[in-house]
């Protein structure tokens, strides 16, 4: 289902966009090759075009300073200095028209609903496997599949409380690149980016209707509380479990805990007794009803998963099993966002919802399937090879940019362990005008919207637009030099 949003306006740019030239054969978020734009973008473009360049540079500089001053940072594990870094922010936003956004939101809601049903099935009757829609091995060999959880149904049947689904745009249409259903991160930067945009560009905000996103933490809190309401506990206790200040996303953990009004805890603040999870406080122990955990499944409970985990709470899974605590997100979600399962998601949507997927996704070759593997091995130099269990851009090989040695090595690895690899054609990620040093140039972007599910589902109008700051780069991940932009969903005026 596509929304007809053809560029129809062509204004004469004399300011910031005077020298801007979109990349050839690549979709640009603002302009088509003739520098035409969507009518809805007119005011935004005019405001930026009229801004003197020195002013934009000054504001950009101020944004970085304010981020530093406010401590909006992330940690990079690989960095030998182990320093906190500022997530580079580009003041020129990505803009999405509300008609297009409505379609995206419906598509995301549909996808999350289907994946939730998939999880419920996979951890219960496994009808989808019995019906032969998905090879049994695809699920059983997934690192994210936790057989220990078979037969456990979380309250309200909700597995995916928070989802971050990566979207890209090619040929003017959004499509899904990746699902993040375990502990998706990045929403704090979405909120901070918006805060910064409002701070530095109030005049633009006052001219166009931009959909509000600042209630995300309260929406999440409300969604999680709504699941406890069914149990009859009137004053549910919600806590956020962090691995600690050395975690890459610690800023986000602290930020969300503050904005959601819940305690930020580490494992030593919690214990399990009588199959219930308790928080140690100065007023005595208190039973925890909802644990918004920001640690991976394998570290959650050393009694059940990784016995050497120092981050988890012994006995937590038993408390979860008996329904005494809600874990958000539910453990075991990794099977649904496994890159090996991804190629089957359109079929999953059709199977559970009897609907066609609203959002298309990137064509993907599963190296598990012999025919597809053969195709991949033949066309390595034109494909993007991804390791199934890695994230953050790790392990990605872009065939056209790889050396012969790299391709030959990855070929051997695929043959040795086909389940661990998928391949996709190289997608020309859309570009967005981005300030680079003193010029505005096209840079590739993706988009991670966030979806919250409780009793109902809500899609944050916007998301984290990540931008590859390096020329010709396709890698937008923060750990590999990417930056971010605010995402403006224009409401109807």
């Amino acid at each position, binding site marked *: 289902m596509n929304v007809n949003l053809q560029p129809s306006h062509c204004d004469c740019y004399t300011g910031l966009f005077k020298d801007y030239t979109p990349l050839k054969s690549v979709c640009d978020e603002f302009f088509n090759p003739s520098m035409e734009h969507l009518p809805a973008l007119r005011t935004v473009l005019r405001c930026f075009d009229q801004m003197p360049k020195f002013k934009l540079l000054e504001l950009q500089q101020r944004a970085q300073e304010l981020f530093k001053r406010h401590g909006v940072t992330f940690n990079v594990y690989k960095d030998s200095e182990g320093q906190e870094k500022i997530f580079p922010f580009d003041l020129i936003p990505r803009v999405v028209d509300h008609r297009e956004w409505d379609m995206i939101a419906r598509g995301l809601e549909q996808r999350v609903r289907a994946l939730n049903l998939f999880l419920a099935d996979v951890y219960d009757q496994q009808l989808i496997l019995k019906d032969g829609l998905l090879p049994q091995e695809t699920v059983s060999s997934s690192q994210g599949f936790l057989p220990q959880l078979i037969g456990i149904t979380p309250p309200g049947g909700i597995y995916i409380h928070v989802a971050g689904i990566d979207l890209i745009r090619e040929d003017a249409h959004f499509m899904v690149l990746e699902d993040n259903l375990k502990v998706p991160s990045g929403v704090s930067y979405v909120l901070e980016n918006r805060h910064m945009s409002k701070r530095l560009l109030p005049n633009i905000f006052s001219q166009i209707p931009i959909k509000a*996103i600042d*209630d995300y933490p309260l929406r999440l809190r409300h969604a999680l509380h709504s699941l406890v309401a069914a149990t009859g506990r009137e004053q549910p206790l919600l806590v956020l479990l962090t691995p600690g200040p050395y975690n890459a996303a610690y800023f986000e953990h602290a930020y969300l805990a503050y904005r959601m009004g819940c305690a930020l805890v580490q494992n030593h603040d919690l214990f399990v007794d009588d199959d219930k999870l308790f928080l140690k406080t100065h007023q005595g122990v208190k039973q925890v009803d909802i644990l918004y955990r920001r640690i991976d499944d394998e570290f959650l409970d050393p009694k059940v998963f990784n016995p050497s985990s120092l981050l988890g709470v012994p006995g937590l899974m038993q408390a979860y099993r008996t329904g005494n605590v809600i874990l958000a997100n539910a453990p075991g979600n990794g099977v649904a966002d496994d890159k090996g399962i991804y190629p089957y998601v359109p079929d999953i949507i059709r199977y559970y919802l009897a609907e066609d997927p609203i959002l298309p996704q990137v064509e993907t070759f599963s190296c598990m399937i012999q025919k597809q593997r053969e195709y991949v091995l033949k066309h390595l130099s034109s494909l993007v090879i991804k390791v199934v269990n890695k994230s953050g851009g790790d392990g990605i090989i872009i065939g056209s940019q790889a050396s012969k040695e790299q391709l030959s090595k990855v070929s051997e690895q695929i043959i040795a362990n086909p389940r661990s690899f998928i391949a996709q054609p190289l997608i020309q990620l859309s570009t967005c005008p981005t300030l680079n040093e003193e010029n505005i140039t096209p840079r590739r972007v993706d988009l991670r919207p966030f979806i919250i599910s409780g009793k109902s589902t809500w899609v944050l109008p916007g998301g984290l637009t990540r931008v590859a700051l390096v020329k010709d780069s396709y890698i937008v991940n923060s750990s590999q030099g990417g930056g971010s932009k605010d995402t403006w969903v224009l409401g109807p005026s």
Partner: protein
Amino acid sequence: MIPNAAQNSFWMFRYLERGEVAARTLLSAHLFKLENHALSLKAEDILLTLSSEKSIFAQLYPKKFNDNELVQYFLTWQEMNPSSLFNTFKNAREDGKLIRNVIGKMIWKVINELYVWLLHPEAKKLYDIDRQLFYQRFLQQSQQLKGGFYNSQSQDFYYHMMELGIRLERAYQALKNIAYLQAHASVQAEASQRDALGSEFDLTRFLLECNACTDCYLKMNYTFDIQACMNFFLFEKVSPRSLTHSIESLSRTISAMRDLSPQGFPKQLNLALKKSAHALALLSDGNISSKNGMQAQHKILSGLNAVSSSIEATFCKALSICKFM
């Protein structure tokens, strides 16, 4: 105690508290307005109602109720508006000027610098280009002033007069919020089709932000609906902005003043506060919007008014005695 100085102490901190709430309200409205919230459509009306100066605005700018810029200007700069941010800080500074020896060098410096800055074109320029920072500056200065007050003042009669000013202003503010929520609840009841997390959610969130209560509200596990928010502003003992907390603090302050000066302490002050406290005790979750509840709220308000006039009367009495002496 010198009656004049006591009066200035009381009013300086009452104005400061009023100014702080006004600055936070204007900042919250500005931020809400920038994004496309359901509430932003009627932000001007909320601002004018909460300021209690709607009639002056109507006189100055007839039929301009929807002009957001004008409303912001009126509440920030307009000298004809006694509750404008400019006037509240100006009045606080005027009172402070008369009791420089009481408030000390640091507090005087902060309030004076803020006033001098307000007169400078730089302030108007900042208001135009970065309104967020403009209002934040007021809030920072106000926090600094209160921090200085609590850290450096000896707990004498003046200190208690300042405390009375802050607490009384907060009690009035709580009543104002409750009245606004009540008015909104009746409108909301008619629009039964609305999204449960729609304007009701935005309104409670907005009022909490204006009063710096969001953290407390979340920690005490309140839900974002009008009834819960009214309960919070009425009864929540943990929140320094609730009516219960304010009245209890007023009572403690009055007791402390009585201990300091049993002879000179006016009985009517205590009696007036008791009137409010008794009326508050008549209220409960279930009857806030009932006839009895409304009567109780009127009694609370008249009790607070009596506290305020009793304080004024005390000063006048003391002043007239001084004159005759």
